């Protein structure tokens, strides 16, 4: 037997390790915590440390007993508050994703068409916000958006408004915060798809009689679709569950699910209910992604 014909045991071990590491990572840091949360979501809240009942109890009289309850989920459906805050989160995340797309697409397109030495600089500028703490950035936005903030000052000095606008602690401020924070996640995947697009394709379409707008609609947009989807998911998912941004910039009516989750965990100390909120949030995220994935698979022959 030659070595080339069948990989040796060493090779196979090595390959297994390389493939295994990400799975191990996922199991340790995603699956295990999720199993824990899932378990808690079926428990009853109790005043103890930890503040939830055991799923399996044991007593002399009854032996082992499974004590699972769907009360937490039932409560989520019955109390309007949770549905409203899920719905509001989805709406805000969706609108913010669309805003990111509208802003990010021209940026990515322009960067992809910029000649090389400048292109890297522009990419660096897109990623620049990552170098500072997002908390600091949000504080800066609070200062800028406040009634005495820079934005109101400029608008008043220009004579566009006579009294300061209330931006901070509104949905507008939340949108600004989300779009600002997650825009790079939209620009970068868009850039990579647009950059790989052969410029000959644009010219070929133009040559065949397509006007610049038609070239965009027929060639650029469909070819950029993988980037649009990737960027959309990268913005939508963290935006949906974001807690800090609505907490700092949003008002009382901007009750997003992340905030609700936080309140249940730390203010009400109702861990089982909070866990149920988290499990539903995950389902809300995973179902559309899986649908999308199976759709992609179908489209490929």
């Amino acid at each position: 037997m030659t070595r080339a014909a069948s990989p040796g045991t060493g090779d196979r071990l090595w390959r297994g390790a390389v493939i295994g590491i990400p799975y191990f990572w996922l199991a340790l840091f995603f699956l295990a915590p999720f199993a824990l949360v899932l378990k808690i979501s079926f428990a009853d809240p109790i005043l103890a440390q930890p503040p939830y009942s055991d799923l399996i109890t044991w007593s002399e009289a009854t032996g082992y007993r499974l004590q699972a309850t769907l009360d937490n989920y039932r409560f989520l459906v019955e109390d309007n508050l949770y549905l409203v805050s899920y719905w509001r989160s989805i709406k805000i995340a969706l609108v913010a994703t669309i805003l990111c797309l509208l802003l990010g697409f021209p940026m990515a397109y322009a960067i992809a068409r910029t000649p090389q030495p400048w292109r890297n600089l522009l990419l660096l500028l897109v990623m620049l916000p990552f170098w500072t703490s997002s908390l600091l950035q949000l504080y800066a936005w609070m200062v800028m958006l406040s009634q005495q903030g820079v934005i109101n000052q400029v608008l008043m000095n220009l004579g566009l408004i006579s009294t300061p606008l209330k931006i901070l602690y509104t949905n507008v401020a939340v949108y600004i915060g989300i779009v600002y924070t997650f825009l790079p996640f939209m620009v970068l995947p868009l850039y990579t798809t647009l950059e790989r697009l052969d410029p000959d394709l644009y010219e070929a379409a133009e040559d065949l009689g397509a006007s610049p707008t038609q070239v965009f609609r027929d060639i650029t947009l469909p070819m950029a679709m993988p980037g649009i989807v990737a960027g959309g998911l990268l913005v939508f998912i963290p935006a949906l569950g974001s807690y800090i941004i609505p907490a700092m910039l949003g008002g009382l009516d901007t009750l997003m699910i992340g905030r609700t989750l936080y309140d249940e965990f730390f203010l009400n100390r109702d861990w089982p209910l909070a866990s149920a909120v988290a499990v539903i949030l995950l389902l809300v995220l995973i179902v559309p992604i899986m649908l999308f994935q199976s759709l992609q698979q179908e489209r490929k022959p």
Partner: protein
Amino acid sequence: MSDTSSSDKPWLDPQQKPLIRLEGISKQFGGFTAVDDVNLDIYRGELFTILGGSGCGKSTLLRMLAGFEQPSTGRILIDGVDITQEPPYRRPVNMMFQSYAVFPHMNVARNIAYGLKKEGLPRAQIDARVAEMLKLVQLEDFAQRKPDQLSGGQRQRVALARALAKQPKVLLLDEPLAALDKKLREQTQFELMNLQYELGITFIVVTHDQEEAMTLASRIAVMKEGRFLQTGTPSEVYEFPGSEYIADFFGSVNLFEASIVAADPGYVTAALEGDGTEIRAATDRELAVGSRCKIGVRPEKLLISQEPPSDPIYTVTRGVVEDLAYYGNRSIYRVRTQNGQVIQVSAQNFQRSAQHLVAWDDEVYLSWDTRCSMVLPE
């Protein structure tokens, strides 16, 4: 056709109107001149080839014809209409890209239909034309395939069909065969020629491959550093090159240093340096007596023999065979002459023989018909 001479060679007929006219076309990129004052007439039905090395400006010229680049100065006319300012999508010109640029997200049929849809043709007409084009490039069974399921040769045919579907006045082809392997390239070359002949569409082909240019073209323009060095039929540029560069570009050539000793209209007499052999050669250039020039002779025009030829029409020189390469149908000899120059001879092997009739270290006579001497001015 009644008058074959003018329809075969419309550029010789002053009555003919050119389909494409380039007037003083120049293009500067920053300080660099890519195309330098090009003037050219191309006639209907021609298969015109622009030939040159990389960076000679041939692609820039093609891109200006397609409308992707604006000339810095000059005008482009098609059928007498100035289209210099027209955007690509309003020109009666289509291009086949070197990369083919087949749309990867559309199947073959939709690729071919794309230009027709932009024209706003009715559905039935588009379908009919697409079917016709698929038949033309023999891709009927591949209409529903996506480009990534096609071979390179098939993608090239999709690109060709897509460009031809619009029935353009002119088809521009940028290195149409460069991405194909050798065998496919030869086959495709003939297909392109037949297609062009059948459809009667004017083709302008840009290539760096002189063999490709020779076999394809009705006329060739040789381009170097943004200028046209010579324009002519393949046999004109091969047999009557305007300069040493062109003579060397199209195949091998043996060069002899010479000086002009006499000149009469249409002819010069030049004396070869070394043995002083006088050669009378045809040239349309005015060359002063005493000026230096080079005499070029192609390897296949040379005869190699052990006996001196008797006919006085031959120019003769002597040498020793230094090297020999046998190709079956022909042999290449490298012969060192008495003054030390190495001359290449390509000879057909007329006789059947297992031995070399002329072998290494043989003393031989090299002779050529004087009319085969090319005068190449310095």
